[in-house]
């Protein structure tokens, strides 16, 4: 049994590696077509990613990985429970606002506690926001894809309104700095000086592990997945499927909201700008989750991969536009959709080998 699980994981990892290789090769080809003289240098920097200028680049990579790890978990958790959470962006910005609000206005809290309260507040805000989609799905049969798309826009408009009303820096048309609730940098300060990475990354890893435990090792997680697999069968088996749909969505929202807090409580000068643009981190959660087949532990690595490549993009931007990284990632994702084929090839190979041994 245990051996089977391992083999399944091995196959998934193998399929991912193949997709990544294809994506990288495509990227190299495009670079060669664009500018042959710089192609290999640029490609080298893209590949080096977080290792371009150690230790600094590595810290930057972890900093970039932090919010997309959470939005990836959000999307992945929803997928595992049969929901498509395309609204991670909205939950992300709502959570980010809650965190900033607490960091700016709740100055009665000592900073050592304020950031934790900020994270919790963001989770509550994200959960409530996503809960709207969940409740509409469970009780009114409204497709969660459509409500979460709509709520993304509403979230941006609402947050803009609230930022202007409560935590506004008028001269710069953005939110004030939540200085009281900046997430401490802890040991990262010594490891990676002058970078953005903070203890939030540790929080993110712990949360990923908790989500994995909930999904795979608890009855609660089993019920959530059962509802996702077949809503009616789950109800027949005695699961309160309506409540579970709402809960799934709320947990997904809490994760995305936490992602917002982890970004906006960084002492790196990020603010919520008052513009009508949906934050990209939420959408980036989709590829992060898909690359890892929605496995929470896998998401730790897929978010690192994306952050690694994006950091590489930063170091190659003197040679090529950084968008080449997104082209590569899109190719990787495209071919990871084919994972079935690579898996079946591997399966055949393993069977042959097994047959010989026996």
């Amino acid at each position: 049994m245990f051996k089977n699980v391992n083999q399944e994981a091995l196959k998934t990892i193998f399929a991912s590696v193949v997709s990544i290789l294809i994506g990288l090769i495509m990227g190299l080809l495009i670079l060669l077509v664009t500018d042959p003289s710089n192609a290999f240098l640029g490609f080298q920097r893209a590949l080096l990613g977080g290792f371009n200028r150690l230790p600094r680049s590595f810290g930057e990579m972890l900093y970039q990985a932090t919010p997309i790890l959470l939005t990836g978990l959000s999307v992945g958790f929803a997928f595992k429970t049969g929901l498509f959470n395309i609204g991670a962006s909205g939950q992300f910005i709502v959570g980010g606002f809650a965190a900033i609000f607490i960091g700016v206005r709740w100055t009665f809290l000592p900073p050592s506690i304020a950031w934790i309260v900020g994270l919790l507040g963001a989770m509550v805000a994200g959960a409530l926001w996503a809960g709207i989609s969940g409740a509409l799905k469970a009780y009114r049969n409204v497709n969660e894809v459509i409500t979460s798309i709509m709520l993304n826009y509403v979230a941006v408009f609402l947050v803009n309104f609230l930022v202007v009303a409560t935590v506004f820096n008028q001269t710069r048309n953005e939110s004030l700095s939540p200085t009281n609730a900046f997430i401490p940098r802890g040991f990262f300060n010594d490891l990676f000086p002058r970078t953005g990475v903070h203890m939030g990354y540790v929080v993110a890893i712990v949360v990923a592990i908790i989500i994995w435990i909930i999904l795979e090792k608890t009855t609660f997680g089993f019920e959530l997945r059962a509802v996702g697999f077949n809503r009616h069968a789950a109800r027949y088996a005695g699961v309160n499927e309506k409540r579970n749909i709402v809960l799934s969505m709320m947990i997904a929202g809490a994760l995305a909201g936490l992602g917002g807090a982890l970004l906006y409580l960084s002492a790196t000068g990020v603010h919520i700008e008052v513009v009508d643009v949906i934050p990209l981190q939420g959408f980036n959660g989709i590829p992060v989750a898909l690359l890892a087949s929605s496995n929470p532990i896998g998401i730790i690595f897929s978010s690192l991969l994306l952050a690694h490549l994006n950091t590489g993009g930063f170091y190659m931007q003197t040679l090529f536009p950084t968008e080449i990284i997104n082209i590569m990632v899109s190719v990787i994702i495209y071919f990871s959709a084919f994972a079935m084929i690579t898996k079946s090839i591997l399966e055949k190979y393993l069977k042959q080998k097994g047959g010989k041994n026996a």
Partner: protein
Amino acid sequence: MNLPFLVQQTMFFAIPLMVVALGGMFSEQSGVINIGLEGIMIFSTFMGILVLNIFVGIIPAQFLFILALLVAGIAGMIFSSLHAYASVYQKANQVISGTALNMFAPAFFNFTMRNQTGSNQLYFLNQYRIPKVAILGDIPVIGPLFFTNTYISTYIGLVILAIAVFVFYKTRFGLRLRACGEHPQAADAAGINVYRMRTYGVLISGLLAGMGGLILTIPTTTAFGGSVAGYGFLALAVLIFGQWKPSRIVFAAFFFGTMKTIAATYTSIPILVGLGIPGYLFKSVPYLTTILVLAFTSKKSVAPKALGEPYDKGKR
């Protein structure tokens, strides 16, 4: 309050949404989720505007616009064939390959633009507006509403609607397509090539999403920045709101377009200004009203039964 202006604005929002959602309908009714509409719109708009810029001054404006629409449609078909190949023949997860298209298109646009011009704004000449349609524009009431300050794309959108309804309901192709999305095994048993029908479904969605991207972009701006502002996703929402049926999609698109127009121009409507709702919140009106309407109408909403399931001949 200026009624013709409001109607024209509504058209600019509603027609592209309708066209793209109709495209999505063909894909999803055949059983393939197409979340890549956004990416297809971006890619095709890029191609369409390139055509506009190459032939500007050589070909008369309106003919050029039609040519660009065709090119955008073909570009959309070619781009969507990637999705068709993955989701139909490789039995890939349809959400994944659609997401890949969404990610590729803006990256490709920005990479190419930055590399070639250093900027990521693609400008085009604003010469496609029709101030007044001959004869029809002089009809009282209807003339100013529908035949002044308009774009040829609006009428093309309506023609597309007519063709789509006809193909969907009145042809053997439409019936077979729907069968593939509802019960592919039965369709296969009846001698229909499910793989081919689904490929057609996705390609039609690429064609219409491609045209829709240009229909949206040309009237509303003079520079394309590699984004269609989430209209691909909104079209997906309109498709679901419209319960995967043409007549309801038209209603949903115009409902949303009207709300969007009201939200964008509410300052010119005295009754609404009097309500004293802050502007930031007013922008949410189209999205909130859509959710509200859905909350009261979705109880019986049914998606095509086999939507999202790759068809495997060998599986029973």
